[in-house]
């Protein structure tokens, strides 16, 4: 197995690559550049990096102003603050005027770990998905993060990029080409379709192996774009398999599971189960302990699939 890399590390590295070829890219952070990894860009391009201090609302507005003048700002903080604290600034200063700013939020989900529930965003996908015209991306690994950063820099309109603190395994091949709005089938299967995003994609692949041992053929689909959702692929695999499990490191309310349920309820009602955080806040603990505690495991995905198929 290849080396595990956190998507935030891949983000920092990708920004530097992008900065070399695209002078319109500017980066802002709210005093967390060492954690969000924008420090790499700050060191490479000090003239195009702006620390806004611990003032996420203003940082968001400044990015909007930069975007009106043709810059493409990437703004970073922890997801709780980037999407939560500055929600209305994102809404009214970035998304309502349809400005091309990427809110790149790290430390999403419970795998923030020891810092505890105050710092673990479990609601950010839902918040961002509710905004008309917002694009929401949750990359599964370093390769996909690099592709997403590059795609969003030339994307017309606002976007939210959800990144994690924890190092995660590679699930995509080296030649993978990320496309906004395109889900990727990582494993074909016939009996149950597992739609996952972020670090849960790797768990879904593990779950598929466990299910194979039980004689169950599971398809695994990486739904890295939560919005606009790849309805076509989701409906096709729901129809093909007849049973669906979603998996995300987010509240089961408002995230990927909700998005998939909405599409299927209207287009092809399918029995389904959602794996995610069951409407609870996080808490302190190691990432591994927290993933276990909140049921964000391959075992839980497999178990939910088996229960559905009974």
């Amino acid at each position, binding site marked *: 197995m290849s080396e595990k890399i956190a998507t935030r590390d891949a983000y920092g590295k990708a920004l530097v690559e992008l900065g070399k070829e695209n002078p319109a890219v500017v980066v802002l952070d709210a005093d967390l550049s060492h954690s969000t990894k924008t420090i790499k860009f700050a060191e490479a391009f000090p003239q195009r990096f702006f620390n*806004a*201090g611990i*003032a996420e609302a*203003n940082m968001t*507005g400044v990015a909007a*102003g930069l975007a*009106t003048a043709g810059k493409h700002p990437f703004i970073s903080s922890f997801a709780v603050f980037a999407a939560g604290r500055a929600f209305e600034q994102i809404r009214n200063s970035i998304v309502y*005027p349809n400005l091309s700013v990427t809110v790149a939020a790290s430390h999403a989900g419970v795998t923030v770990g020891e810092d505890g529930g105050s710092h673990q965003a479990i609601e950010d996908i839902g918040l961002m998905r509710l905004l008309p015209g917002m694009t929401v991306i949750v990359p599964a690994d370093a390769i996909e993060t690099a592709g997403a950063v590059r795609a969003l820099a030339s994307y017309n309109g606002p976007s939210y990029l959800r990144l994690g603190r924890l190092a995660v395994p590679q699930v995509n091949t080296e030649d993978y080409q990320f496309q906004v709005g395109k889900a990727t089938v990582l494993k074909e299967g016939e009996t149950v379709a597992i739609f996952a995003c972020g670090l849960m994609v790797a768990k879904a692949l593990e779950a598929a192996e466990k299910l194979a041992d039980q004689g169950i053929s599971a398809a695994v689909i990486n739904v890295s774009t939560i919005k606009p959702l790849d309805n076509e692929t989701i409906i096709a695999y729901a129809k093909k398999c007849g049973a669906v499990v979603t998996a995300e490191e987010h509240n089961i309310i408002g995230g990927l599971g909700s998005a998939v349920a909405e599409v299927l309820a209207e287009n092809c009602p399918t029995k389904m189960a959602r794996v995610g955080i069951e409407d609870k806040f996080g808490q302190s603990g190691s990432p591994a302990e927290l993933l276990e505690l909140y049921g964000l495991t391959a075992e839980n995905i497999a178990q939910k699939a088996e229960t559905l198929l009974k």
Partner: protein
Amino acid sequence: MTTEAFAAELRFRAIDMLIKAGSGHPGGSLSAADIIAYLFNEELNINPQNPDMPERDRFVLCKGHAAPALYCALAMRGFFPLKELDTLRKLGSPLQGHPDMKKLPGVDMSTGSLGQGLSVACGMALAAKLDGQSNNVYAVLGDGEQAEGQVWEAAMFAAHYQLDKLIAFLDLNGLQIDGTTKAVMDSAPLDDKWRSFGWAVQVIDGHDLNAIKAAVAKAKTEKTPSMIIAKTVKGKGVSFMENNVDWHGAAPKGEQAELALAELRKGVSL
């Protein structure tokens, strides 16, 4: 057209469009009218034939509810036909209740949610600095808006990054929806506050066009961002609206509408 005549016509048109709309914010449109009239008639380097000209000066109406004053200034400068002013707040109109840059040429930023505009103006000034452009960025804030924490985040940012091309006006009319700013949330002393945040501060009569002009000229020479605190009268120009908080967010109707227009028509040739 003299700026005095421009301001008089702007006031008349702003109230006329509010009457036709049946709702909106007359008080704050009239208090900011002279500032906006000066900027759009004399100061801003803008081009109605090319509203997105990259080197143009920027204008952010942070107190977006004064949209009628901005719309009149833009229409009078030829950004869109004057007759469109009659569509204010109507379904399908580019003249939304609060400014919408997606819908109306000449609007540099969508505003209306108080506290957010100055941050955006900072971003515009920062972009100009990065690109080595010499354009100025103007912003008009309200005094009730001074209670928003984000305003002070932006104040710190502008001083920290030495955004000397940023020139803001504070429309100090002393009233907000729920009453006097002193009673609702006293933000005084605002001159000391802005000064202590690292801004060059001037205090002027916001209805004295010469004073506005002189203040902008001085602001342009500063090495820091500038705040021009403009003491104004809410509802300026309509006798029964002046200093009366009831006219923050209500359009005049019937006899009051006629009276308001009669008072504002003086000195206006249409």
